[in-house]
Protein backbone atom coordinates (compact mmCIF):
# COMPACT_ATOMS: atom_id res chain seq x y z
CA UNK A 1 0.00 0.00 0.00
CA UNK A 2 1.39 3.35 -1.05
CA UNK A 3 0.56 4.96 2.23
CA UNK A 4 2.47 8.21 1.92
CA UNK A 5 0.36 10.70 -0.01
CA UNK A 6 3.51 12.05 -1.58
CA UNK A 7 4.76 8.78 -3.03
CA UNK A 8 2.40 9.25 -5.97
CA UNK A 9 4.62 12.12 -7.11
CA UNK A 10 7.80 10.08 -7.13
CA UNK A 11 9.60 9.83 -10.41
CA UNK A 12 11.28 6.56 -11.22
CA UNK A 13 13.19 5.25 -14.13
CA UNK A 14 11.50 3.01 -16.67
CA UNK A 15 13.98 0.95 -18.61
CA UNK A 16 17.70 1.59 -18.78
CA UNK A 17 19.59 4.62 -17.65
CA UNK A 18 20.31 7.01 -20.52
CA UNK A 19 23.01 9.60 -20.11
CA UNK A 20 24.20 12.42 -22.30
CA UNK A 21 27.43 13.61 -20.82
CA UNK A 22 26.71 14.05 -17.16
CA UNK A 23 23.00 14.58 -17.71
CA UNK A 24 20.62 11.79 -16.85
CA UNK A 25 17.83 11.78 -19.41
CA UNK A 26 16.43 8.36 -18.63
CA UNK A 27 12.89 7.51 -19.64
CA UNK A 28 10.78 7.84 -16.50
CA UNK A 29 7.13 7.52 -15.59
CA UNK A 30 6.86 11.28 -16.06
CA UNK A 31 8.22 10.93 -19.59
CA UNK A 32 5.78 8.08 -20.19
CA UNK A 33 2.78 10.23 -19.28
CA UNK A 34 4.06 13.17 -21.27
CA UNK A 35 4.31 10.86 -24.26
CA UNK A 36 0.89 9.32 -23.60
CA UNK A 37 -0.74 12.74 -23.31
CA UNK A 38 0.88 14.02 -26.48
CA UNK A 39 0.01 10.86 -28.34
CA UNK A 40 -3.58 10.97 -27.15
CA UNK A 41 -3.92 14.57 -28.31
CA UNK A 42 -2.40 13.74 -31.68
CA UNK A 43 -4.61 10.68 -32.18
CA UNK A 44 -7.82 12.44 -31.17
CA UNK A 45 -7.18 15.52 -33.27
CA UNK A 46 -5.90 13.50 -36.20
CA UNK A 47 -9.10 11.45 -36.16
CA UNK A 48 -11.07 14.64 -35.73
CA UNK A 49 -9.54 16.29 -38.76
CA UNK A 50 -9.37 13.32 -41.11
CA UNK A 51 -12.80 13.39 -42.65
CA UNK A 52 -14.64 16.55 -43.42
CA UNK A 53 -18.34 16.03 -43.51
CA UNK A 54 -20.91 18.80 -43.38
CA UNK A 55 -22.47 17.04 -40.44
CA UNK A 56 -19.48 16.27 -38.18
CA UNK A 57 -19.27 13.03 -36.24
CA UNK A 58 -18.53 13.06 -32.50
CA UNK A 59 -14.76 13.10 -32.65
CA UNK A 60 -14.72 15.70 -35.40
CA UNK A 61 -17.12 17.81 -33.40
CA UNK A 62 -14.83 17.49 -30.38
CA UNK A 63 -11.81 18.61 -32.38
CA UNK A 64 -13.64 21.48 -34.00
CA UNK A 65 -15.23 22.66 -30.77
CA UNK A 66 -11.81 22.66 -29.07
CA UNK A 67 -10.40 24.55 -32.02
CA UNK A 68 -13.06 27.23 -31.89
CA UNK A 69 -12.92 27.35 -28.10
CA UNK A 70 -9.19 28.12 -28.06
CA UNK A 71 -9.53 30.37 -31.08
CA UNK A 72 -12.23 32.41 -29.37
CA UNK A 73 -10.24 32.54 -26.14
CA UNK A 74 -7.22 33.95 -27.96
CA UNK A 75 -9.14 36.48 -30.02
CA UNK A 76 -11.05 37.65 -26.94
CA UNK A 77 -7.97 38.22 -24.80
CA UNK A 78 -5.16 39.01 -27.22
CA UNK A 79 -6.94 40.21 -30.35
CA UNK A 80 -6.32 39.35 -33.96
CA UNK A 81 -2.57 40.00 -33.74
CA UNK A 82 -2.15 36.80 -31.71
CA UNK A 83 -3.18 34.61 -34.64
CA UNK A 84 0.37 33.36 -35.41
CA UNK A 85 0.66 32.05 -31.84
CA UNK A 86 -2.58 30.10 -32.04
CA UNK A 87 -0.91 26.72 -32.59
CA UNK A 88 1.38 27.21 -29.63
CA UNK A 89 -1.39 28.19 -27.25
CA UNK A 90 -3.60 25.42 -28.55
CA UNK A 91 -0.83 22.84 -28.01
CA UNK A 92 -0.09 24.27 -24.59
CA UNK A 93 -3.72 24.21 -23.49
CA UNK A 94 -4.25 20.69 -24.79
CA UNK A 95 -1.00 19.41 -23.30
CA UNK A 96 -1.70 20.78 -19.84
CA UNK A 97 -5.34 19.68 -20.01
CA UNK A 98 -4.48 16.13 -21.07
CA UNK A 99 -1.68 15.81 -18.50
CA UNK A 100 -4.07 17.00 -15.78
CA UNK A 101 -6.84 14.70 -16.95
CA UNK A 102 -4.59 11.64 -17.27
CA UNK A 103 -3.50 12.36 -13.72
CA UNK A 104 -7.12 11.90 -12.61
CA UNK A 105 -7.05 8.21 -13.57
CA UNK A 106 -6.04 6.09 -10.56
CA UNK A 107 -2.45 4.76 -10.52
CA UNK A 108 -1.31 7.28 -13.09
CA UNK A 109 1.26 9.97 -12.79
CA UNK A 110 0.41 13.66 -13.01
CA UNK A 111 3.06 15.37 -15.10
CA UNK A 112 1.89 18.86 -14.20
CA UNK A 113 2.21 18.23 -10.48
CA UNK A 114 5.94 18.72 -10.86
CA UNK A 115 7.26 22.23 -10.40
CA UNK A 116 10.06 21.66 -12.87
CA UNK A 117 7.67 20.85 -15.70
CA UNK A 118 5.37 23.81 -15.09
CA UNK A 119 8.33 26.07 -14.49
CA UNK A 120 9.94 25.13 -17.78
CA UNK A 121 6.67 25.80 -19.61
CA UNK A 122 6.14 29.08 -17.76
CA UNK A 123 9.67 30.33 -18.28
CA UNK A 124 9.50 29.42 -21.94
CA UNK A 125 6.32 31.49 -22.19
CA UNK A 126 7.87 34.32 -20.19
CA UNK A 127 11.02 34.44 -22.31
CA UNK A 128 9.03 34.09 -25.52
CA UNK A 129 6.60 36.86 -24.60
CA UNK A 130 9.45 39.17 -23.56
CA UNK A 131 11.30 38.51 -26.82
CA UNK A 132 8.12 39.13 -28.85
CA UNK A 133 7.53 42.36 -26.91
CA UNK A 134 11.00 43.66 -27.60
CA UNK A 135 10.83 42.66 -31.27
CA UNK A 136 7.46 44.38 -31.77
CA UNK A 137 8.11 47.56 -29.77
CA UNK A 138 11.88 47.75 -29.33
CA UNK A 139 12.79 49.53 -26.13
CA UNK A 140 9.30 51.00 -26.13
CA UNK A 141 8.29 47.71 -24.54
CA UNK A 142 9.76 49.05 -21.30
CA UNK A 143 6.82 51.46 -21.20
CA UNK A 144 4.91 48.45 -19.91
CA UNK A 145 6.41 49.23 -16.51
CA UNK A 146 5.25 52.84 -16.57
CA UNK A 147 1.47 52.94 -16.42
CA UNK A 148 -0.10 56.11 -17.74
CA UNK A 149 -2.07 58.43 -15.47
CA UNK A 150 0.02 57.79 -12.35
CA UNK A 151 1.17 60.72 -10.18
CA UNK A 152 4.89 61.44 -10.62
CA UNK A 153 5.57 60.99 -6.93
CA UNK A 154 4.24 57.45 -7.00
CA UNK A 155 6.02 56.58 -10.23
CA UNK A 156 9.26 55.10 -8.79
CA UNK A 157 7.27 52.86 -6.50
CA UNK A 158 4.87 51.80 -9.26
CA UNK A 159 7.71 51.01 -11.64
CA UNK A 160 9.41 48.83 -9.06
CA UNK A 161 6.14 47.04 -8.34
CA UNK A 162 5.46 46.56 -12.04
CA UNK A 163 8.93 45.14 -12.63
CA UNK A 164 8.60 42.75 -9.72
CA UNK A 165 5.17 41.62 -10.86
CA UNK A 166 6.46 41.16 -14.39
CA UNK A 167 9.44 39.12 -13.23
CA UNK A 168 7.31 37.00 -10.94
CA UNK A 169 5.04 35.99 -13.80
CA UNK A 170 6.81 32.71 -14.57
CA UNK A 171 6.87 31.81 -10.90
CA UNK A 172 3.20 32.58 -10.29
CA UNK A 173 2.18 30.87 -13.49
CA UNK A 174 4.14 27.70 -12.75
CA UNK A 175 3.42 27.53 -9.02
CA UNK A 176 -0.32 28.03 -9.57
CA UNK A 177 -0.61 24.98 -11.78
CA UNK A 178 1.84 22.84 -9.84
CA UNK A 179 0.39 23.66 -6.42
CA UNK A 180 -3.18 23.10 -7.53
CA UNK A 181 -2.40 19.72 -8.99
CA UNK A 182 -0.24 18.60 -6.11
CA UNK A 183 -2.63 19.77 -3.43
CA UNK A 184 -5.62 18.15 -5.10
CA UNK A 185 -3.90 14.82 -5.58
CA UNK A 186 -2.48 14.85 -2.07
CA UNK A 187 -5.92 15.55 -0.64
CA UNK A 188 -7.40 12.70 -2.60
CA UNK A 189 -4.68 10.39 -1.44
CA UNK A 190 -5.16 11.42 2.18
CA UNK A 191 -8.89 10.85 1.99
CA UNK A 192 -8.22 7.54 0.26
CA UNK A 193 -5.97 6.64 3.16
CA UNK A 194 -8.72 7.54 5.60
CA UNK A 195 -11.11 5.22 3.79
CA UNK A 196 -8.68 2.33 4.27
CA UNK A 197 -7.85 3.14 7.88
CA UNK A 198 -11.41 3.80 9.01
CA UNK A 199 -12.50 0.51 7.49
CA UNK A 200 -15.94 -0.60 6.39
CA UNK A 201 -17.74 1.23 9.19
CA UNK A 202 -16.20 4.66 9.33
CA UNK A 203 -14.83 4.79 5.82
CA UNK A 204 -17.99 5.99 4.16
CA UNK A 205 -17.55 9.61 5.11
CA UNK A 206 -14.05 10.01 3.66
CA UNK A 207 -15.17 7.89 0.70
CA UNK A 208 -17.97 10.31 -0.09
CA UNK A 209 -15.49 13.13 0.35
CA UNK A 210 -13.19 11.35 -2.01
CA UNK A 211 -15.93 11.06 -4.61
CA UNK A 212 -16.78 14.74 -4.27
CA UNK A 213 -13.08 15.61 -4.47
CA UNK A 214 -12.71 13.61 -7.65
CA UNK A 215 -15.39 15.75 -9.28
CA UNK A 216 -13.79 18.88 -7.94
CA UNK A 217 -10.38 17.80 -9.14
CA UNK A 218 -11.65 17.14 -12.66
CA UNK A 219 -13.03 20.66 -12.63
CA UNK A 220 -9.73 21.97 -11.31
CA UNK A 221 -7.82 20.01 -13.94
CA UNK A 222 -9.78 21.74 -16.67
CA UNK A 223 -9.79 25.11 -14.96
CA UNK A 224 -6.06 25.18 -14.36
CA UNK A 225 -5.34 24.29 -17.97
CA UNK A 226 -7.70 27.07 -19.00
CA UNK A 227 -6.11 29.54 -16.58
CA UNK A 228 -2.65 28.59 -17.77
CA UNK A 229 -3.64 29.18 -21.38
CA UNK A 230 -5.57 32.37 -20.76
CA UNK A 231 -2.75 33.88 -18.70
CA UNK A 232 -0.42 33.07 -21.57
CA UNK A 233 -2.82 34.94 -23.84
CA UNK A 234 -2.91 37.90 -21.47
CA UNK A 235 0.89 38.06 -21.33
CA UNK A 236 0.95 37.80 -25.10
CA UNK A 237 -1.59 40.60 -25.29
CA UNK A 238 0.72 42.82 -23.21
CA UNK A 239 3.54 42.09 -25.61
CA UNK A 240 1.50 42.56 -28.80
CA UNK A 241 -0.75 45.47 -27.90
CA UNK A 242 1.15 47.80 -25.62
CA UNK A 243 -1.58 49.74 -23.84
CA UNK A 244 0.37 51.63 -21.23
Amino acid at each position, binding site marked *: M*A*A*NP*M*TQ*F*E*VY*RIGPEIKIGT*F*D*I*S*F*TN*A*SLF*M*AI*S*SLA*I*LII*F*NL*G*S*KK*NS*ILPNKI*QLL*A*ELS*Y*SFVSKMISDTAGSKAKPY*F*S*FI*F*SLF*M*FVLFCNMFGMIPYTFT*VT*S*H*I*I*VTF*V*LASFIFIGVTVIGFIKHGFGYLKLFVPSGVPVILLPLIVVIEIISYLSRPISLSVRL*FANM*MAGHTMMKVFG*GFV*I*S*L*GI*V*GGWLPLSFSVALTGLEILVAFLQAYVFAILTCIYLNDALNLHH
Partner: protein
Amino acid sequence: MIKKIFFQSIFFNFFFFKEVFAAESGGMPQLNPEFWISQIFWLTLTFGILYIVLSKLILPKISANLELRKSQIQDNIEAAEKQRKDSESKLKEYDDIIFKSKLEAKNIFKDSREKVIKDINNKKETLENQINEEIKKAEKEIEVVKKSAPEKINKIAIEASSELVKKLIGAEINNSSISAIVDDLSKKNGDKYYGN
Protein backbone atom coordinates in the same frame (compact mmCIF):
# COMPACT_ATOMS: atom_id res chain seq x y z
CA MET B 1 -22.36 -4.55 18.53
CA ILE B 2 -22.09 -2.16 15.62
CA LYS B 3 -21.46 0.65 18.04
CA LYS B 4 -18.63 -1.30 19.59
CA ILE B 5 -16.97 -1.95 16.23
CA PHE B 6 -17.38 1.70 15.27
CA PHE B 7 -15.69 2.97 18.40
CA GLN B 8 -13.04 0.34 18.17
CA SER B 9 -12.27 1.33 14.62
CA ILE B 10 -12.08 4.98 15.58
CA PHE B 11 -9.88 4.11 18.54
CA PHE B 12 -7.55 1.92 16.54
CA ASN B 13 -7.30 4.58 13.86
CA PHE B 14 -4.37 6.03 15.66
CA PHE B 15 -2.38 2.89 15.08
CA PHE B 16 -3.40 2.83 11.47
CA PHE B 17 -2.58 6.48 11.01
CA LYS B 18 0.87 5.81 12.32
CA GLU B 19 1.16 3.08 9.75
CA VAL B 20 -0.35 5.26 7.00
CA PHE B 21 2.16 8.03 7.42
CA ALA B 22 5.01 5.81 8.51
CA ALA B 23 6.57 5.69 5.07
CA GLU B 24 6.85 9.47 4.89
CA SER B 25 10.49 10.21 4.36
CA GLY B 26 10.03 13.95 4.46
CA GLY B 27 9.95 16.50 1.68
CA MET B 28 8.31 16.53 -1.71
CA PRO B 29 9.58 14.35 -4.51
CA GLN B 30 9.08 17.41 -6.75
CA LEU B 31 12.02 19.11 -5.11
CA ASN B 32 14.35 16.19 -5.67
CA PRO B 33 16.52 17.30 -8.57
CA GLU B 34 17.53 13.78 -9.55
CA PHE B 35 15.22 13.61 -12.59
CA TRP B 36 14.88 17.31 -13.37
CA ILE B 37 17.09 17.17 -16.43
CA SER B 38 15.27 14.08 -17.66
CA GLN B 39 11.91 15.79 -17.19
CA ILE B 40 13.05 18.94 -18.99
CA PHE B 41 14.45 16.86 -21.83
CA TRP B 42 11.32 14.73 -22.26
CA LEU B 43 9.01 17.70 -21.85
CA THR B 44 10.85 19.56 -24.59
CA LEU B 45 10.84 16.51 -26.82
CA THR B 46 7.18 15.51 -26.41
CA PHE B 47 5.82 19.03 -26.35
CA GLY B 48 8.01 19.97 -29.32
CA ILE B 49 6.74 17.02 -31.35
CA LEU B 50 3.18 17.77 -30.27
CA TYR B 51 3.52 21.42 -31.26
CA ILE B 52 5.13 20.68 -34.61
CA VAL B 53 2.65 17.99 -35.62
CA LEU B 54 -0.34 20.02 -34.46
CA SER B 55 0.75 23.25 -36.09
CA LYS B 56 1.99 21.75 -39.35
CA LEU B 57 -0.44 18.91 -39.98
CA ILE B 58 -3.53 18.85 -37.85
CA LEU B 59 -4.59 22.40 -37.05
CA PRO B 60 -4.44 23.64 -40.68
CA LYS B 61 -6.68 20.71 -41.63
CA ILE B 62 -9.22 21.51 -38.91
CA SER B 63 -9.11 25.16 -39.89
CA ALA B 64 -9.63 24.26 -43.55
CA ASN B 65 -12.49 21.96 -42.61
CA LEU B 66 -14.16 24.70 -40.62
CA GLU B 67 -13.64 27.22 -43.40
CA LEU B 68 -14.94 24.80 -45.99
CA ARG B 69 -18.01 24.05 -43.94
CA LYS B 70 -18.59 27.75 -43.35
CA SER B 71 -18.26 28.56 -47.02
CA GLN B 72 -20.43 25.61 -48.02
CA ILE B 73 -23.14 26.65 -45.61
CA GLN B 74 -22.78 30.22 -46.85
CA ASP B 75 -23.04 28.98 -50.44
CA ASN B 76 -26.11 26.96 -49.62
CA ILE B 77 -27.71 29.92 -47.91
CA GLU B 78 -26.89 32.08 -50.91
CA ALA B 79 -28.27 29.49 -53.31
CA ALA B 80 -31.42 29.18 -51.23
CA GLU B 81 -31.74 32.96 -51.19
CA LYS B 82 -31.27 33.10 -54.95
CA GLN B 83 -33.85 30.41 -55.52
CA ARG B 84 -36.24 32.16 -53.24
CA LYS B 85 -35.77 35.36 -55.23
CA ASP B 86 -36.17 33.44 -58.47
CA SER B 87 -39.38 31.88 -57.30
CA GLU B 88 -40.60 35.25 -56.12
CA SER B 89 -39.92 36.81 -59.50
CA LYS B 90 -41.54 33.84 -61.21
CA LEU B 91 -44.57 34.27 -59.00
CA LYS B 92 -44.66 37.95 -59.86
CA GLU B 93 -44.40 37.12 -63.54
CA TYR B 94 -47.18 34.62 -63.18
CA ASP B 95 -49.31 37.17 -61.38
CA ASP B 96 -48.54 39.70 -64.08
CA ILE B 97 -49.52 37.27 -66.77
CA ILE B 98 -52.74 36.42 -65.01
CA PHE B 99 -53.50 40.10 -64.50
CA LYS B 100 -52.71 40.92 -68.11
CA SER B 101 -54.77 38.09 -69.46
CA LYS B 102 -57.66 39.09 -67.23
CA LEU B 103 -57.37 42.60 -68.56
CA GLU B 104 -57.22 41.33 -72.11
CA ALA B 105 -60.23 39.12 -71.56
CA LYS B 106 -62.09 42.10 -70.18
CA ASN B 107 -61.08 44.18 -73.16
CA ILE B 108 -62.08 41.49 -75.58
CA PHE B 109 -65.40 41.14 -73.85
CA LYS B 110 -65.90 44.89 -73.87
CA ASP B 111 -64.90 45.20 -77.50
CA SER B 112 -67.14 42.43 -78.64
CA ARG B 113 -69.97 43.81 -76.61
CA GLU B 114 -69.52 47.22 -78.15
CA LYS B 115 -69.30 45.68 -81.56
CA VAL B 116 -72.46 43.71 -81.02
CA ILE B 117 -74.23 46.77 -79.67
CA LYS B 118 -73.02 48.80 -82.63
CA ASP B 119 -74.16 46.06 -85.00
CA ILE B 120 -77.53 45.94 -83.39
CA ASN B 121 -77.82 49.69 -83.52
CA ASN B 122 -76.81 49.74 -87.17
CA LYS B 123 -79.25 47.09 -88.06
CA LYS B 124 -81.95 48.83 -86.09
CA GLU B 125 -81.22 52.06 -87.88
CA THR B 126 -81.32 50.53 -91.32
CA LEU B 127 -84.44 48.72 -90.37
CA GLU B 128 -85.98 51.92 -89.14
CA ASN B 129 -84.90 53.67 -92.29
CA GLN B 130 -86.44 50.95 -94.36
CA ILE B 131 -89.57 51.08 -92.32
CA ASN B 132 -89.67 54.84 -92.66
CA GLU B 133 -89.19 54.55 -96.37
CA GLU B 134 -91.90 51.99 -96.60
CA ILE B 135 -94.16 54.19 -94.56
CA LYS B 136 -93.35 57.16 -96.78
CA LYS B 137 -93.99 55.12 -99.87
CA ALA B 138 -97.24 53.89 -98.47
CA GLU B 139 -98.20 57.41 -97.51
CA LYS B 140 -97.35 58.62 -100.98
CA GLU B 141 -99.46 55.88 -102.47
CA ILE B 142 -102.24 56.74 -100.13
CA GLU B 143 -101.83 60.38 -101.09
CA VAL B 144 -101.99 59.47 -104.74
CA VAL B 145 -104.99 57.30 -104.17
CA LYS B 146 -106.56 60.04 -102.13
CA LYS B 147 -105.98 62.60 -104.83
CA SER B 148 -107.36 60.40 -107.55
CA ALA B 149 -110.29 59.27 -105.46
CA PRO B 150 -112.67 62.35 -105.94
CA GLU B 151 -112.27 62.24 -109.72
CA LYS B 152 -113.10 58.57 -109.83
CA ILE B 153 -116.00 59.11 -107.51
CA ASN B 154 -117.19 61.92 -109.65
CA LYS B 155 -116.93 59.69 -112.70
CA ILE B 156 -118.77 56.91 -110.95
CA ALA B 157 -121.34 59.41 -109.72
CA ILE B 158 -121.76 60.76 -113.26
CA GLU B 159 -122.12 57.31 -114.71
CA ALA B 160 -124.41 56.17 -111.91
CA SER B 161 -126.56 59.29 -112.17
CA SER B 162 -126.76 59.01 -115.96
CA GLU B 163 -127.76 55.37 -115.61
CA LEU B 164 -130.29 56.31 -112.94
CA VAL B 165 -131.72 59.09 -115.07
CA LYS B 166 -131.95 56.76 -118.09
CA LYS B 167 -133.72 54.14 -116.08
CA LEU B 168 -135.98 56.60 -114.34
CA ILE B 169 -136.99 58.77 -117.23
CA GLY B 170 -135.69 56.82 -120.12
CA ALA B 171 -134.03 59.78 -121.65
CA GLU B 172 -130.48 60.41 -122.49
CA ILE B 173 -129.08 63.27 -120.62
CA ASN B 174 -125.97 64.98 -121.62
CA ASN B 175 -123.05 63.79 -119.61
CA SER B 176 -121.56 67.19 -119.40
CA SER B 177 -124.55 68.66 -117.60
CA ILE B 178 -124.48 65.79 -115.08
CA SER B 179 -120.81 66.19 -114.51
CA ALA B 180 -121.25 69.86 -113.87
CA ILE B 181 -123.83 69.08 -111.20
CA VAL B 182 -121.66 66.36 -109.63
CA ASP B 183 -118.67 68.61 -109.62
CA ASP B 184 -120.67 71.26 -107.98
CA LEU B 185 -121.92 68.82 -105.34
CA SER B 186 -118.56 67.29 -104.69
CA LYS B 187 -116.98 70.68 -104.34
CA LYS B 188 -119.67 71.46 -101.83
CA ASN B 189 -119.51 68.19 -99.89
CA GLY B 190 -116.14 66.78 -100.79
CA ASP B 191 -114.58 68.08 -97.66
CA LYS B 192 -117.17 66.20 -95.71
CA TYR B 193 -116.30 62.82 -97.18
CA TYR B 194 -112.59 62.91 -97.64
CA GLY B 195 -111.48 65.06 -94.86
CA ASN B 196 -109.01 66.94 -97.02
